Each structure stands twice: as structure tokens, then as C-alpha cells.
């Protein structure tokens, strides 16, 4: 098998799904494209090995998630991966008993990268706590605590916005 066999087909088949994941991890289309492009280049560089894996897509997912998290830790990447600000956050719909996505999405974006990654992997990728821990390279207990802290932050954020509106959440 050649070093590149199947890579183009892999990109064609998985790009959309992985791009959406990258977008949820970064909150920005340009950063998402950069993140996925970088991850795919790394994947290509090791394609001989990655292509033999059961799920090459999981390899890319792990790469992207860890780049986003490590970008937060590494000062040299700050200029490239600072989170977008949302200075004007919309208020909840006064007549709704459900959470307005226009309110919740900025709150998710405002989470620290690791917590946000946990939320995205658990609720978008539908990974178990064990699988999420495997992607992030940490213990299941860490995932539980990160998830708990993130959910608490989201609830507090919703409460804060509700003070100016009448949205509700449970």
C-alpha cells in the first residue's frame, strides 16, 4: 500500500463531520478550518499508521481536541487561539420555557477550552465518560468534575441572563 492510499477518500468522507466538530471546539469558522487543516496534515504525515487504525476519524478528533486544549496551556499559541468575545449577549425569550440557543451558545463558547471540549465530546459526539477521558488523556474522574463545573457555569450564566429577562431552564 502506498503512503497516501485512501487519504483523499478519507478527507472527502469525513471533512464535513470533522469540520463541524472543529467549529464547536473553537467557535470560529476560520479557526475551525485552521484546526482541521492542521490536524489533517498531521494525519497525512502519519497516514501509513493511521490508515490501519479501526477509526482514523477518532485519531483526527483526538488531535484536534488536544491541540485546542494545549493551545490554552502554551503561551506561544495565545495569539492564535484566544477565544472570541461576545460583548453583546442576547437575552432569553421572555415567553419561552426553554433555553434560547442564542443565549446558551455564547455561554458554551465562554467555557475554558477543556470544559468546553468535555461538553462537546459528551453532548455532540455522544461519547461516554470513559471515551471522553480517553480522547483527553485523563481520568474518568477528571471528566466528571470538568463536566460538573461546566454545567454549573452554564446554569449560572443562564441565571444571570434571566435576571434581565424571563427565560427559564431546569
Amino acid at each position, binding site marked *: 500500500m502506498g503512503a*497516501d492510499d485512501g*487519504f*483523499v477518500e478519507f*478527507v*472527502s468522507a469525513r*471533512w*464535513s463531520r470533522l*469540520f*463541524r*466538530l472543529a*467549529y*464547536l471546539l473553537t467557535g*470560529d*469558522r*476560520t*479557526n*475551525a*478550518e*485552521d484546526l482541521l*487543516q*492542521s490536524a*489533517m*496534515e*498531521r*494525519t*497525512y*504525515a*502519519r*497516514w501509513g499508521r493511521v490508515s490501519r487504525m479501526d477509526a482514523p476519524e477518532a485519531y483526527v478528533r483526538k488531535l484536534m481536541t488536544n491541540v485546542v486544549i494545549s493551545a490554552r496551556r*502554551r*503561551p*506561544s*499559541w495565545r*495569539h*492564535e*487561539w*484566544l*477565544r*472570541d*468575545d461576545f460583548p453583546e449577549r442576547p437575552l432569553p425569550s421572555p415567553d419561552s*420555557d*426553554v*433555553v434560547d*440557543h442564542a443565549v*446558551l*451558545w455564547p455561554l*458554551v463558547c465562554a467555557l475554558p477550552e477543556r470544559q468546553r471540549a468535555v*461538553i*462537546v465530546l459528551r*453532548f*455532540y459526539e455522544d461519547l461516554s465518560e470513559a471515551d471522553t477521558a480517553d480522547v483527553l488523556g485523563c481520568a474518568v474522574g477528571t471528566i466528571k468534575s470538568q463536566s460538573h463545573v461546566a*454545567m454549573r457555569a*452554564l*446554569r449560572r450564566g443562564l441565571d444571570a441572563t434571566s435576571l434581565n429577562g424571563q427565560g427559564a*431552564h*431546569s
Partner: protein
Amino acid sequence: VSLDQELRSLLQDTAERCEVTTPDVEALVTGGRSLRHRQRVGRTGAGALVVALLATGVGLMAWGGQSDDRPEGRVGTVGPSEPVSPSWLPVTPTAGPQQADHGVMPFFLDLATGERTAVPAGLAPDTIGMSGMGTYVNYDVSSDGRRVLVSTCHSYPCSGTDKVFAANVDGSDLRELRLPGALSGYHPMWSPDGTRIVYQARSGGTNRVGSLVVQDVESGRSNEVVHFPYELSWWVLFPSFSPDGRSIVFQLSHHGSPGSDVWSVPVTGGDPTLLLKNAAWPAYLPDGRHLAFVEPSDGTHRQRIRIADGHGDRRTVVAQGEIRWPTVSPNGARIAFGNGDSVRVVDVSTGRVVTVARGESAEWLDDHTLLVAPHP
């Protein structure tokens, strides 16, 4: 409705609404090959480094605890040099004004009317003894539009005789900058207030990178803000001041592989900060909050001029085959660049590109006039 359910719904909806880009598979493969090459070189380099450490007993000095693509060796600051007095020597041009031979001689180009005017003696390389095959000409116009820096850059092998000149826009008051030591000066750029210039000083005829030097125009006092004690195959740094005059932004090539990164260093010296990976040709927009650059930096496939805002947001202004020498107009509305054949101008807000002349590069005299440099 539980927050869990809301999150699932939100993330699915947001992901579905996200407009997915089309993958540039060719770029991915090229980037992946470059990375694979770098990994191989890195492994070889790591082995050589271990041998070197064992042989010399010298510890590895990590710069800020990070290692990828950072320059080898200690990058430090050298204090102010003794002033070179006088700092500028008057020069008399050797020939009269040239004909505007498009693509051969430099000329002013009025973008509103299309009128072309030959540059006066003093701004043309052959009138100051700096012409020759393979010679790139660089210009930088001061922010008040009155003075022009003229320098040359000989393609490899370097002649070692490259100099820096300054003249009024009309060619009068031509002077040669006295460089500290027997060094060549490359890509000089004015500070925003016109009192200093920054350039790359290096010994000619080698691939040694040399130093970034900030020099006071009147006193001649120079300050080496960064020293690069090694060789690179592509050693040109393309430094320029930030609009507030406090820092210098420059590009630095990777070791052993194509491409470069963009760094910043205070004008007073100190450890450089990595701003952008895999980026080249940095240039601040006038607001000082946005930085235009070219990526990918290896120049081997489709390149883009992008603008970063320093807060994670980047947007693409234009995508082309090859992009060289981007320069931002004084009002920041347009960027001129070369593609190896022509000079083009792109509108920053709309991305509309216009080919304006044959030539290598162009510098903005004002928001509507370019100084077009010929092909080497």
C-alpha cells in the same frame, strides 16, 4: 427541558448551521509531506543534538520551555552601540532620470489615472550603483510621504555589498546610511515617526542570519535588538515597526524545512514572541490591532493573504497561487503584492483584486500611488 437535552439540541443545531468549507486536498497533502519531512529532519537533528551535547557537555537551553521551530541558540539583546557619526553620507547620483521601462525600471503608478512616471535619479538602483542581474530593490516610504529608503538584496550568492540609501521622493538629498561594522543592511523600514529605521544587518556572502538593528536616523546610534547566531537557507527577516513604534515584527525561517513563522520583539530588545505559526511577510495595518500575513509560508502551493486580529480571529483577504512582498496602504484599505509576474492590489474589505502593472513588488507612496519595483 433539561440542560443536557438543551446542550445536545444546541450543539446539533449549531453544527448543522455551520457552513462547511471545501477541503483543499492538495494543500493538505503538501502540508503533510512538509510535516513528514520536518519530522524526519527533526529526528535526525535530535540525534545530532544528543551527540553534540555529549561531546561538548553543554546543556540544552530551551527558550521559554518550548522547542518546536524555535531558533537554536540563545537569542539575546546587545546594548546600544557607539554612534556612527555622521550616520549618513551625502551621495551624488551617477545618472539622470530614467525612462519608465515597465518591468525593467522602477516607476510611480497613479492608481486613479494609470499614469506612470519614471522615478528620479537617486531612487533608481542604477543611479546609485546598485543595479545588476538578480538584484531585488526594496523601497519604504516614510509615514509623512517625504523620504524614501532604497535598498537592494542580491539573490544567492550574496554579493556582500548591499547598502541602504535614503532620499526625498523627488530624488534630492540622497544619502547612504553608515552601517556599524562591515555589514550589509537589508530591508530597511522607517519607524512611524521617521526618527529610526530597522533593518537586518549581516555579513554578506554567507547564509548567516545576522541581527535586527534599530538605528536612530540623526545620531546614528544603533541597537541590536535580536541576534541570530546561525545560518538559514532563507535568511531574509522582513522586519517592520508596529504602528505604535514599540515593537518589531519579522519572519523567521524554519530550520531544515520550508516555511517560516512570524515573531515580534520590543524595539528595546528582549526575547521575541511567537505570533503566528506557518506565516510569512508580516505587516501591521495602521490600527495596530490587525496584522496582515501570508500563509502557508512555504510558498509551494496556494497562498493566502490573511489578517489576524490578535484575538484569535483571522480572515482571508485573497487567495492566489503565489504571494510576495505584500504592503499595506497608508489608510489600510488596500494591500499591494507581487505574484512573481505582476503587481496586484486587493481591496481589504471586498477581496477584489486588480492587476496594476508588471513588476516584482510595490510600495505605497500614498493611498493612490505606488512605487513599483522591477523584476530582479
